[in-house]
């Protein structure tokens, strides 16, 4: 496979394979939580339905569109970097960061509204609800919280990418840092693609 490939390509391949292995561990991490969710939903279908009515479908849909758009700008950033237009690539990374910040802001308002209604882990009001609803909100805060941590990490990595590009460490010939960060970002998008319907769209 690698007989006609140069040394640089070999290290780039290894970097990409490593990133994919990490992505697989992330899929298993969230997969376990999704399995937990599905078992509890199977045991408490009515409570899950009632609890999901407390979430704002509008905010969830808005955040889904924001995150999908940020995935597009991230993909375009890699494209522009590869074809040798680093200026445009940095612009697209900047746009991705803005969308990520928008996502977190909407998420923050959502969580804030839940807190105001006495819905947060171990709150007296929450604990007075039926057991299935307590489980639902426990999973909601755990899973969207873990996802939000991934969004914050992704933003940090993109910020690091911008710095590396300014310093000339990342170029069209050495794009692996930006490529791997973007892979991570798309993974964050894929996880949200499942979180959104499972928490917001229980009909």
């Amino acid at each position, binding site marked *: 496979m690698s007989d006609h490939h140069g040394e640089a390509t070999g290290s780039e391949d290894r970097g990409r394979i490593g990133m994919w292995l990490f992505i697989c561990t992330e899929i298993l991490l969230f997969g376990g939580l999704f399995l937990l969710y599905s078992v509890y939903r199977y045991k408490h279908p009515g409570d899950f339905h009632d609890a999901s009515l407390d979430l704002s479908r509008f905010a969830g849909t808005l955040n889904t569109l924001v995150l999908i758009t940020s995935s*597009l700008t991230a*993909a375009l950033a890699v494209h522009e970097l590869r074809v040798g237009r680093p200026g445009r690539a940095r612009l697209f990374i900047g746009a991705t960061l803005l969308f990520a910040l928008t996502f977190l802001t909407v998420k923050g308002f959502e969580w804030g509204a839940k807190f105001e209604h006495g819905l947060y882990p171990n709150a007296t009001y929450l604990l007075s609800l039926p057991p299935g609803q307590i489980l639902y909100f426990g999973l909601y805060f755990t899973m969207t919280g873990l996802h939000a941590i991934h969004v914050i990490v992704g933003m940090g990595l993109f910020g690091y990418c911008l710095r590396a590009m300014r310093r000339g460490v990342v170029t069209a010939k050495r794009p692996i840092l930006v490529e791997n960060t973007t892979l991570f970002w*798309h*993974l964050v998008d894929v996880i949200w693609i499942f979180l959104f*319907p499972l928490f917001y*769209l229980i009909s």
Partner: protein
Amino acid sequence: MSDTTLEHKPGYRTYLLVYAALVILTVVTVTSASMDIGRIAIVIVLAIAGTKSVLVLLYFMHLRYERRLLVKLLVPIVVVTLAIFIGLTYTDILFR
């Protein structure tokens, strides 16, 4: 240089088409969830989420253009592993 890792680089056209498909599927999933179609809704919603993920994996994450068989196989292997976990869990939950 970049041709050594990716057989063919997707461009703006591909990315924008995939983006449009993702937005349309989001709209479809939200509309179908607000209709009263009963228990089948969860199947539809999950099928749409699966389709969206495959689109992101194949085009945004370049798996379609990946030349290394190892990388191509990783995600399917993990999905099968998860399916086994889920299947075994449910044989316990359903027949306890």
